[in-house]
Each structure stands twice: as C-alpha cells, then as structure tokens.
C-alpha cells in the first residue's frame, strides 16, 4: 500500500447511520434504485484501497452513494456495482484559470475587488470536461490577472447536472484575487507613445502595481474613519481587512512573494493565500512567520514555473511541509497531461513529500482554502459523491485514472476500461 496510514477497522467507522441498517450487513446489496429520469446517481463502489483524505486509508472497503451524495464509507466485502483498485476524493483545483480570458476581468479600473467573475464563466467550454476526465471535479475560477485587485473568484463543479449556474457554481465570493508581478502591468504604457486609452494608466512596473494595491487598502482604512469618503468596492476590501474574505495574491518570484508578505504585514491582513507560489525556499522563514498559506505553481520537469519564469524545485512542497506551512498543489488546468493535477502529487512525492500530505494538497486542503470543505474534498458521509477511480495506487507514475464520478454521475465509467 502506498499511503502509510494504518487501515481502520470497519467497526470504528460511524458512517452507517442511514436508513438501510448496518452497512456491514451483506444484504446492503447493489440494488440501488433511482426514481427520476436523470443520470444514475446512486451506487455502491468497492475498492482495494479507499484514500479518504481524512487521514486514513480503508483497505478492502466500499463507498455507498445515494442521490449524488456519499451515504456510507466502510470496510468489508459486499456486493457492489463495480470494483476498482483505488478511490480518492475528486481533485480540487484552486487555481484553474478556466475563465473566458481577458473578458473575465473588468479593466475599467486596475482595482476592481468587488467584481465577481461569475459573469466571466463559460460553462459550455470543453475544457471543463477535459479537467473532469483527468480527475478534477471542483475548480476555483478567478478573473484573469490584468488588474492588481481583479475581483471575486467562484468555485465551480466541472461536471454533473446541466451546465447552468445553479447546477455548477457552488460558491461565490470565495475571496479577493490580487496579482503582484508583471502581469497587471504588461501592455500598459505612458500617455506618450500611443493613442490615449485604457493602457495609458498606471501601473507599468512592479512598484506601480504595489502602489495601486496600497492605495486601495489605505483608501479603505480612510473610509473607515471618514464618513464622507468612499469608493467602489470598499465593503469588499473591508471584508478582507477583517479576515472575512481570504486574499489570494499571485506572487511567484521571490521579490513578488516578499512584496505580498510585506503587504499582509503592513495592513495586518489575517487571511492571505499566496497563489503560484514558487521561490519559497529562499524566503522560508518569512513564509513561516507570515502565517500565509500557499498554492504552488505547477511542478514541471525542468524546475521552472510557468508563471513569470520563477524557479520551483520539486522539493519545495516537502520543504514547506516540514516547516508546517499549509499548502495546496495546482496545475492551472494546463493542457499538458504530465503536469495535470492528478500528476502534481507524484512530482511532489518524488521531491520528498509524504504521500498523505500530497493527497490532501489536491483535495481537502484546497477545499478548505476555498471554503467548500463542508461539500467536497474528502470521502465522508454527506459530501458530494466526487470520486476518482485508479488502476493502482494513486499518484504513482504506473497508475492511471480509470474513472471519475461527480455528484454521483459517472463521468468516466471505469467499467469501460477507459484509461487516461
């Protein structure tokens, strides 16, 4: 078995409280019945290993699913609808980039903290299914990083039901998206050199980006003191200052990381998540001292992150784990299957990360960072039946995703022998 945690006896699982009586009873058969005409969302799946992402692994167990929710998890030989080698929770991508592109961010101002990305979604895009087939069942979508303070991300299911806001969007106002570095300033220019337009405004440099951020937060502090002073988005900034909304700051290179941590300290922002984190080892002390959480940029074979060309060695997640820093892994919905979210834990484990931590870093930890851990991120009774089925031990180069379930619907049916 890959994961080091001891299997837990079925008797210690308290998941059998639903109406069907004790689940260890072999009469809990596969006669799952569905009333409505939609896709089937009630199943019993058995597996050699169930990695629940709650710190335990069940050997020789089952997951029972009713109406799209997990109704029971346990150990024991029972007749199921199908059997797989291993089950993990559906993967949670907290830095997906699956927006409609530049039209997802309102560049009316370089500081639009209050604008939700909801209207910048294309739920009909084929990219959702690509993510789903690679095991990602939940994804956070943020506005593109063309603004310093870009707005409010949302959390979306990648499949299940219909491609409507009601069926797919599970949380809005997830936090505020901010970006350091060159992306918010790229393409801007002074008023001379090209005709007057949007891009003639600040910022054109890192110091300009940081200035916009600080002006916004100082304006919010001023508005708290001065009843006659306000600006669009002030309530949202105040929620960030009060710790009611997390602040996600993209900061990959070392200087951007230090800028972000400096801003966190300057404004005493309680809840900061560094996105696209890369060059963290040289500033490990500052990261630990700040209390910020991290979302790592995708680990790639050459040790260079796709964001701003920052250095990101494979041992960075293991190093942060040793220091007790909370972090998630991300794949930014890359088209390259080698760097998909299902492969990121493999790279991190190869860099020395404990496999249990690696699993959590693509499931329950990102779910917590996004505030949706009550719904998804682990295999527990009452949560969405979002499951990934594996041909062998998860996150091994020799294993593959053979099936994916989202909200109880079999998006990829492992019985068809499809492998990705």
């Amino acid at each position: 078995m890959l994961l080091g945690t001891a299997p837990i006896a079925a008797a210690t699982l308290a998941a059998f409280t639903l109406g069907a009586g004790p689940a260890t009873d072999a009469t809990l058969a596969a006669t799952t019945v569905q009333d409505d005409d939609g896709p089937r969302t009630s199943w019993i799946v058995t597996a050699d290993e169930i990695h629940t992402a709650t710190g335990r692994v069940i050997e020789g167990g089952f997951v029972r699913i009713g109406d799209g929710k997990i109704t029971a998890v346990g150990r024991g030989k029972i007749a199921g609808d199908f059997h797989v080698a291993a089950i993990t929770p559906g993967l949670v991508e907290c830095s997906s980039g699956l927006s409609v592109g530049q039209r997802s961010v309102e560049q009316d101002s370089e500081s639009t903290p209050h604008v939700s990305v909801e209207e910048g979604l294309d739920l009909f895009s084929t990219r959702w299914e690509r993510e789903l087939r690679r095991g990602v069942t939940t994804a956070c979508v943020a506005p593109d990083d063309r603004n310093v303070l870009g707005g409010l991300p949302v959390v979306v299911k990648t499949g299940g039901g219909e491609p409507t806001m009601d069926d797919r969007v599970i949380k809005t106002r997830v936090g505020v998206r901010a970006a350091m570095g060159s992306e918010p300033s790229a393409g801007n220019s002074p008023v001379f050199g090209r005709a007057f337009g949007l891009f003639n405004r600040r910022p054109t440099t890192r110091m300009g980006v940081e200035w916009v951020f600080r002006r916004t937060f100082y304006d919010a502090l001023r508005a708290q003191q001065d009843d006659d002073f306000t600006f669009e988005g002030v309530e949202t900034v105040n929620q960030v200052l009060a710790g009611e909304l997390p602040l996600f700051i993209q900061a990959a290179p070392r200087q951007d990381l230090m800028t972000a941590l400096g801003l966190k300290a300057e404004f005493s922002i309680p809840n900061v998540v560094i996105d696209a984190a890369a060059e963290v080892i040289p500033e490990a002390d500052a990261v630990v001292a700040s209390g910020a959480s991290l979302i790592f940029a995708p680990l790639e074979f050459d040790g260079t992150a796709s964001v701003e060309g920052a250095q990101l060695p494979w041992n960075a997640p293991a190093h942060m784990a040793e220091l007790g820093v909370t972090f998630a892994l991300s794949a930014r919905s890359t088209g390259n299957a080698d760097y998909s979210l299902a492969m990121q834990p493999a790279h991190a484990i190869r860099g020395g990360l404990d496999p249990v931590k690696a699993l959590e870093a693509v499931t329950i930890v990102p779910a917590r960072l996004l505030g949706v851990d009550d719904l998804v991120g682990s295999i527990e009774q009452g949560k969405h039946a979002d499951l990934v089925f594996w041909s062998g031990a998860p996150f091994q180069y020799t294993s593959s995703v053979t099936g994916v379930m989202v909200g109880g619907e079999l998006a990829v049916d492992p019985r068809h022998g499809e492998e990705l």
Partner: protein
Amino acid sequence: MISTLSAAALLLSSCAASGQGSVAAPLAGPTVTGAVVSAPLVAAPLEASFVRHEVVVEAAAPAADVLAVRAGHLHMADGSIVEDGVLLVRDGLVTAAGADVAVPDGARVVEHDGHVSAGLVAAYSAGYLPRDEANENTRAYLPDGRVVHGFDPELSALEDALEQGVTSLLLAPGTSQVVGGRTAVVKTSGGRVVTPNAHLALSMGAPAASTARTPTSYAGIVSGLDARFADAEGAYAEAKSGNLGLLTYVSARHEVDRALRLFERHELKGALVGPTLAGELAERIRASGCSVVLPNPPLVLDERTHDAMAALFEAQVPFAFWLSDPHEFRASAIVALRAGATRAQALASITSTAADIARVGTSVGKLLRGHDADFVLWSGDPLEFTTSVEAVYVRGELVHTAGHHGDDQ
C-alpha cells in the same frame, strides 16, 4: 413565366405607380419621424401580430387602380399555398389574396404560372449601412442613437438584395457596443423607411467587451445593463414594457445563457441574434419567450449544427436568418427545411416570422389585406434551389425583373 399579356400590364402598372409620389417616398429632411414612416413609430409587440383570413375586396373600388396577380401557386399569410390564387393590390397595399377572389373588371392583370410569395424580409442584416456607420465606437451606451441616420437608399448592396427577392431588411447597429442604438426597417427599393425605431439593440457578445474603452469584461457589460434596466428610464423602460423591441447580439452559448439570466432578472424578452448553437438551449429560449435570428448556415450542415437547428424548430422557437450575402439568404430557409423545419416555418423564417421579429409584422412579410404589396414572382417553389426570381414588386410597383445577364437562370 410572365405572359405576353401581362408584360403590357406590367408596363402599365409601372407607369401608374411612378405617378404616385406616395409609393416610394424617399427618406428626406433632418428627421425620420415624419410622414415618410409608413408603420407606427412604436410597432405592436410580437405576440400582437396575428393572421387574418383573406377578405374578398368590396367591388366598389374603381377597378382601373387595381392590380391583379393571377398566381399558379400563391403563398398565403397562414403558410398555406393556394392553387390558382389571386392577389389584388390597390394604392400599394394588398386588398385581397386567396382562391376565391374575383378580379374586378378593368383591373390590370399579371399572369404568373409559377409561385408568388410575399417579398422576403431580413430580421437582421450586416453590410447594408455605409462603412463605419454601424458602430459608434466612442460610446458603449447609446440608447437613443438611430442607425437610420446612416441609411443610404442609393447603396448598391440594396439593389443586390432586391434582385434576390428581399424587399425589407432590418438595419442594426454593430455588435461592438453594449447598447448600440435603435434598429430600423427599410425597403430595399425606393428608400422607404418602414420604421426608424424597431428595437433597442444590445450586444452581449465578445466584441462588446473591448479594451478600446470600458467595459472590457462580461461582468462590466452585465453590471452596466443591470443598472440601466433596474431603474429603467427612456429607451430602457420602453424596451422593458415592450413598446420598443429588444434585439441582443450573442454568439457563444455562454453568452446566450448570460443574456437569458439578465432577461429573467428584468423581465425582458426579444430577439437573440447570432447564436449558431442556440438550439442546444432551445427549451430555455422557448421558456424565455425570445426569438432567434441565426447566421446563414452552410448549405451542408455538420451533425451538431443540424441537431441544434432541429431542436430549435422542434421547440417552436420563432426563428429567422440574418442577411449578409443576399445569394445565401433564401438558401438559409432551404437549409432549415432540410434540417427539419416545416415548409411553412422555413418560408416564414424569411418572410412573416422575420417581419414579426423585426416588429413590422403588421405591415410587411405577409400577403394580407392592408399589408404593403411587396411580393416576388418566382420561377418555381421558392424553397427549391433551382428556383429563381422573375420579378419583384414593392408597394405594388414592379421594381425588378430578371434580366438576361445570366445572374438569374
């Protein structure tokens, strides 16, 4: 075929018509709200247009002013086809159409053994305004702008459309402004403006989120429109009440979805222009009460586009096609027929339904008493590829006959 007898009648009719100044009143003067407008400024809502059964005209009229067209196959307002039908025209208007219509003594008679239908109507068009007249690029919101001020009756493209049987078309602002202005419906012949004020034109498509000015995002488009429709005044209030039409450019399905959610919040409905795969959301569109104006499909549809169109027809969503290349316009209706539309739905998509969507269904698009006598003499069934235009009448006046230049068979 036009018989020798009727050729003389055609000549007569042409002379008579040119003597009537009211038939083809040109657009003139600084305002278009005056007498040149033949339809009410505010057209009736789409659902208010209705089909009346043909009425036999009273015989009291001096028959010399009457034009009578004897048609082998006459396409009626209700979608039926009458064999050996008669169409009566007086003062530029239809006075009767049907099987049992008597030709008054002394009427000028046109014999046509082919098909006769209402002149074709385009519920949306591109390329029928002079360059740069469709988009007011410096203003993302221009609710009181009227594209009719850019209408050039001498534009050669109008003649091209006329030759393909198109007698009325909707002029719309371009798609790169959120609120582009007001649409207008004009005749392709004579410079007549049917209405200068058919719809408030919105764009919720990608071109409206432009970094040339704000808004640059879908969120910006939506918040801008939400604010304007929430406490609606002026054109927004008129569009909300239905006094003014609403026409919205959307292309991708997520844009359709976004528009439908906006419409639901503000109790709006209108025409969705441009969504090729609208049929994949057919049930939602039907429930919204919206109609759809589709881009011209290719002659041979891929399976997905075919299925989407079929779903739209199945759901009974009112649909029409836009006009860009006039040679493709009638073909769009033929493609619709092949994709599962009924013959009546298909022909209506380029005549009566198009006129309803363009909010001029009470004056053009049907051969119905009181409607403009805009009609086409076809060599055969207009829903056949091999059929060509033989003659086009606007307001009872012969304005085009197929020449011998090889442009029509």
